Structure formats: structure tokens, C-alpha cells
């Protein structure tokens, strides 16, 4: 009898605690998966500063419907292997309602199966690989991974047309990084180049982390190009530009968003000049609602606003809008995001209107910026 009442009390206490638990755990968590150490760490820093700014802004305004927001950071080194081990840790934490990440397409592709299987909405601010849109739906056809950045094929097509029509180049050498990002971009470029009649005189590859590119450049130089398409990231891109200059190649360099980092100029030195790149966001041409953010950001971090920070800021903004509308439920948030499917329903962020197609991919325009006298400026001629 005594034992029984003891048991009843215990059950009662448990019930009270469990019922009270959601009321106590009011903080909404958003996972942020990015490289915070390792060779791509500066991407992680960019993402973090964008997320941090948005989270601080949300909390200063009293949270989302009274719930404070917290960002939880997961380091995945831009490495598919690491990303695949980080993903289960994220989904296991039930307080995390959505993920901002990953930065690199290959890492995103590696983590994607876990997110889709368990069912957590993901917004990548930077992964531009084309195939992501074919691998992000569960068996019921529901898309779990969205992105608010345009795709490689779009950038590749855009660059081929820009090189021919605006830059007036005729003979292009292609130098690509041997991973999902570099190859996807290169393939789209080659296809569009063939369509618009732009001659490609050579195509060579390199491995991430390499520092000597002279053998490949020597080979490319043989084709006598007037333009060099660097389909990769800024670290290697800067070295490629510098070594091409050392080999006496007088070429206009161009590439996509992967080149867009101040380190490109730092490492490339004078050779970085005369490089064009597509970016999803350009502070100089930003919409009106971005001005306040740009000012706060530049005061706080003492550097120019980059597109990754801007997109990360908007990715958190999209989650905040979803949370405000449907509350902290992974599935409902997904439904909300999937419902943003046309220009009239678009989320008005600082990077312009964002809406998703049936594959979770956005339709956003590209800006072109260039390096001139050791500084980034908007390219004199944009293309729509």
C-alpha cells in the first residue's frame, strides 16, 4: 500500500515535470553547420557574423513571439566526412528546429540524407551545387533542404554570356577544382559557351589545397587564351592568378562566388587585379532595407559586408518568419518554407526577394564585381 502511493507520487511528479518542460524550455535553437576551423574557416566566420547579427536583432526585439532564439554552432571543416558525422548530432537535439548550412556543396550533399530521413528543415546560404535539388526530398516528395543562393549552373551560364557579351573575350582557358562545386560550375559554363559560340582553348583540373599550379597553367598557356575562368575558391584562385602572372599570361580572370573573399586580393597581390566574379549580393547595389544592417555589420566587425554573411542573415530571417507564423515545429516550418513558392509570396530579405521552386531552389539574380587597384568594386557593367 505504501509502496503503491509512493509510485503514484512519482508518476504524478513525472507528469508535472514533463508537462512543465515545454514551458520551461522556451528557447528556440537554430543549428549552424559550417567550417569554423581548417582551411575554409573564414567562410565559417562569415556565416557566423551574419547569423549572430540576426539572432541579436531578434532577441533585442523580444524574441519570436516571446521565445528567445539561440544559434548552436557545429564545426564541419567543409569536409563531407565531418559533415556526415555532425548531421546526426544536430537532428538528435530536439530543441533545434532548423539548420542554417552547410557552406560547401560537398559537405551539404553528405549531410543531406540525415536531414531528409529524420525531417529537419535546412537552408543553405551558400551551397550552389546543382544536384542538391534532386536529393533533398523524402519518399513523400517533401523537400527538406532549401537555399537562398543561386545555383552553379546559373552562375556558369551567366559567366559564359558575360565573358562574351560584356567582357568581349574570345579564347577561354578553364581551370577547375576537382570537387562538386568546381565541376558543376565548369560543366554549366562549357555548355553555355558552346551555345553562345565562345571558344574554350583548354580545360585543366586541380586538387583542393594544392599550392603549385604552374604545370597546368603552362599547359593552358599553350592555347593562347585571353580569358581565364577559375572555377574554384579564393585560396587556390589567388595563387592561380599570381602564378599565371609569373608565367607571363596576360588574361582577364573571372570566376564565381567562391573567389569572393578579401583573402583573394591579399594572397593574389597585384595579380588579383582585373578579376571579375559573380556574387549573390553586392553592398553597393543593395536594396533599401539592407542599409541599416550594412551599417551595424561594418561597425561591429570592422570589415566590408560579404555576401555569405548577408545570405546567412537572411537564412535566419526566413526561419524567424516561419517560427513567427507556425511555431517551433520542424514539420510545420518545412511546410511554411515550401509554401513560399512564388514572387508574390517572396520573403523580402536584405539580399532581395527570395522564393523557392518545387526543388527548394531560389530564383535570384547575380551581381558582378571586380578587383581594381587592389580593391573590390562593382563591375562597371552589370548584366540582367
Amino acid at each position, binding site marked *: 500500500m505504501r509502496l503503491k502511493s509512493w509510485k503514484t507520487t512519482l508518476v504524478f511528479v513525472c507528469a508535472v515535470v514533463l508537462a512543465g518542460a515545454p514551458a520551461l524550455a522556451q528557447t528556440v535553437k537554430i543549428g549552424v553547420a559550417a567550417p569554423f576551423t581548417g582551411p575554409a574557416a573564414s567562410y565559417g566566420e562569415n556565416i557566423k557574423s551574419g547569423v549572430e547579427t540576426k539572432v541579436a536583432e531578434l532577441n533585442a526585439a523580444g524574441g519570436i513571439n516571446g521565445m528567445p532564439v539561440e544559434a548552436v554552432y557545429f564545426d564541419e571543416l567543409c569536409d563531407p566526412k565531418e559533415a556526415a558525422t555532425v548531421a546526426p548530432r544536430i537532428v538528435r537535439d530536439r530543441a533545434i528546429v532548423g539548420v542554417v548550412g552547410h557552406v560547401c556543396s560537398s559537405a551539404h550533399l553528405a549531410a543531406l540524407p540525415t536531414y531528409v530521413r529524420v525531417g529537419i528543415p535546412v537552408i543553405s546560404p551558400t551551397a550552389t551545387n546543382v544536384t542538391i535539388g534532386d536529393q533533398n526530398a523524402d519518399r513523400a516528395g517533401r523537400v527538406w533542404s532549401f537555399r537562398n543562393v543561386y545555383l552553379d549552373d546559373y552562375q556558369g551560364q551567366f559567366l559564359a554570356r558575360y565573358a562574351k557579351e560584356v567582357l568581349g573575350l574570345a579564347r577561354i582557358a578553364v581551370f577547375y577544382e576537382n570537387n562538386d562545386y568546381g565541376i558543376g560550375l565548369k560543366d554549366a559554363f562549357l555548355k553555355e559557351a558552346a551555345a553562345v559560340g565562345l571558344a574554350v582553348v583548354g580545360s585543366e583540373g586541380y*586538387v583542393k589545397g594544392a599550392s603549385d599550379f604552374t604545370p597546368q597553367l603552362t599547359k593552358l598557356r599553350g592555347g593562347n587564351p585571353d580569358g581565364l575562368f577559375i572555377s574554384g575558391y579564393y585560396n587556390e584562385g589567388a595563387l592561380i592568378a599570381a602564378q599565371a602572372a609569373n608565367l*607571363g599570361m596576360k588574361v582577364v580572370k573571372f570566376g564565381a562566388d567562391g573567389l569572393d573573399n578579401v583573402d583573394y586580393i591579399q*594572397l593574389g597581390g597585384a595579380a588579383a587585379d582585373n578579376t571579375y566574379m559573380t556574387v549573390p549580393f553586392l553592398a553597393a547595389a543593395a536594396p533599401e532595407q539592407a542599409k541599416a544592417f550594412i551599417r551595424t555589420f561594418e561597425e561591429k566587425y570592422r570589415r566590408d559586408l560579404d555576401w555569405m554573411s548577408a545570405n546567412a542573415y537572411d537564412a535566419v530571417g526566413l526561419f524567424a518568419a516561419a517560427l513567427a507564423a507556425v511555431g517551433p515545429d520542424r514539420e510545420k516550418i518545412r511546410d511554411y518554407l515550401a509554401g513560399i513558392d512564388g514572387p508574390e509570396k517572396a520573403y523580402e530579405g536584405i539580399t532581395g526577394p527570395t522564393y523557392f521552386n518545387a526543388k527548394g531552389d531560389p530564383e535570384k539574380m547575380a551581381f558582378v564585381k571586380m578587383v581594381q587597384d587592389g580593391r573590390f568594386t562593382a563591375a562597371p557593367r552589370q548584366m540582367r
Partner: protein
Amino acid sequence: MLEQQLINGLTLGLIYALIAVGYTMVYGVIQLINFAHGEIYMLGAFFCVTLITAAGLPFYVAMLMAVICCALCGILLDIIAYRPLRRAPRLAALITAIGMSIFLQNLALIIWGSRSKPFPRASLPAYLSEQALVMGQVGLTWLQLFIFAVAIGMMVALFLVIHKTRTGTAMRALAQNRTAAALMGINVNAVISFTFALGSAMGAVAGILVAVYYNTLYPTMGYTAGVKAFAAAVLGGIGSVPGAMVGGVVLGVAEALGAGYVSSLYRDGVAYAVMIAVIVLRPSGILGRAAIDKA
């Protein structure tokens, strides 16, 4: 194009050779593969840049100071990590070497951060960035000539130290038989420390040259360079100093020609295939002597 690829390969190869010499000397004297050697190479580059940016020293002075610092680091590495294990099984020292490599790499990550840094170009003598000669399609920069001169100069100096000085004689004696050398009155620990200092100095020079040549340095740069240089040392015959030099140059040229004529994505593959082919045909390496196992 062939001439240009040979120049590219030779530049790379001489740098590998400088690092490989450090592996092979230490192996020759205490039969230890010092995996932390790649990190000394990385530290050389970082010391040099820090001395230029923080202390404002001119390039040549900073380079010399960085090399001396690295030589001291090499001695310290031996005293702290390897000397206590001199009589322990070889595997223990090998694991310690890997541990020291990871430790130094992470220490550098904490001190200097993970981002790639440019070499402070303003401090470099202006002539280094100019073309020394251009013949049609073939170009050679002063910087490449500087690398050739420094690397070959260092190797000649090393050869003289090993063959014409008493310490060099002691090193060679130690390589033949440690017990007998000790019985002849050679201060074994001092000679081993000297070997580490010499190898580390060569590694540091390589690190600085690479940082200048590619205008970039980062804390993980020692890993790949270390692996390549180790391969070069094995290719040339580990324990043989001229072998390490030859091995480095062969590997560098194979890599450049592989990238230029086979496929740019298989450049490392081509380099290692050459290494494997040599090892299969001559297990002791190009210039290595067939070892008589002392055990």
C-alpha cells in the same frame, strides 16, 4: 612547353630536396622518421613572416633569424620528445614524432589562426618579382633563380659539413655504429642535436622559399610537403644525403611532367607511381646502399 615544365619541376624538386635532407639525416643517425619535420618547415615560414611584420626586420635578416630559431626548435624537439626515448622501442619514438607533428600544427593554428596569410611582399627585394630571362615561351623569374641558388648552395654547404668537419665525421661514425662511436669518445647526444639543428635549418629555408614563391603560408602546409619530402627521401634511399637531393628533384620533375603531359588531376599519382616503380626495382632507393641489418 617542355623546358618550362622542367623549370617548374626543378623549382619544386629542389624545395622537396631541402626538406628531404632533414628526414634522411635524422634517419641516418638515429633510425627515426621524424614526422614533425614538416612542422619545422611550416614554423620556418611563420617565424620569418612574424619577424618581418612584427619586428620590422629586412627580409634577409628575418630569414637568417628564422632559420636559427628553427634550428633551436629542432634541438628542443630532440631534447623534449626523442632523447627520453632513445633506448625505447623504435615504434614509441615514431608515435611520439607523429604526436609532436600534431601538437606543433595545432599550436601554430592557435597562435597564427587558420587563414592563409600572404607573404609580406613589400619587404622583398624588388628584383625577386621580375623576370630574369624570357626566351619565347620559356620564362624564368629571379625568384626561381634565387631558389636554385639557395637550395644548391645549402646542399653544397651541407656536403662540406658532413665530409670535411670533425662534427660531420662524428655524424657519419654515429650512422655506422652508435655504440662504437660512443666508445671512441664521441658525445652522442651533442652530435644528434647537431643533426637535428642542421636538418631543421634546411627545412626552415625550404619553408621560407615556398612561402615567398607561392606568396602564401598556413599552419597545415607542413603536412603535404612533409609527405612528399618523405617520399623523396625514400625514393633517393633513406639515410643517404645525396640520395635525398636526387629523390627530391626526380619527384618534383615527375610531378610537373605528370601534370603537363598525363593528366593534371593525377600529378601526385604520377609522382608516387615513379616512387613505387623505383622502390620495386631498387628497394634501397636510387642512391641507398643495401642495408646490413645491425640488429
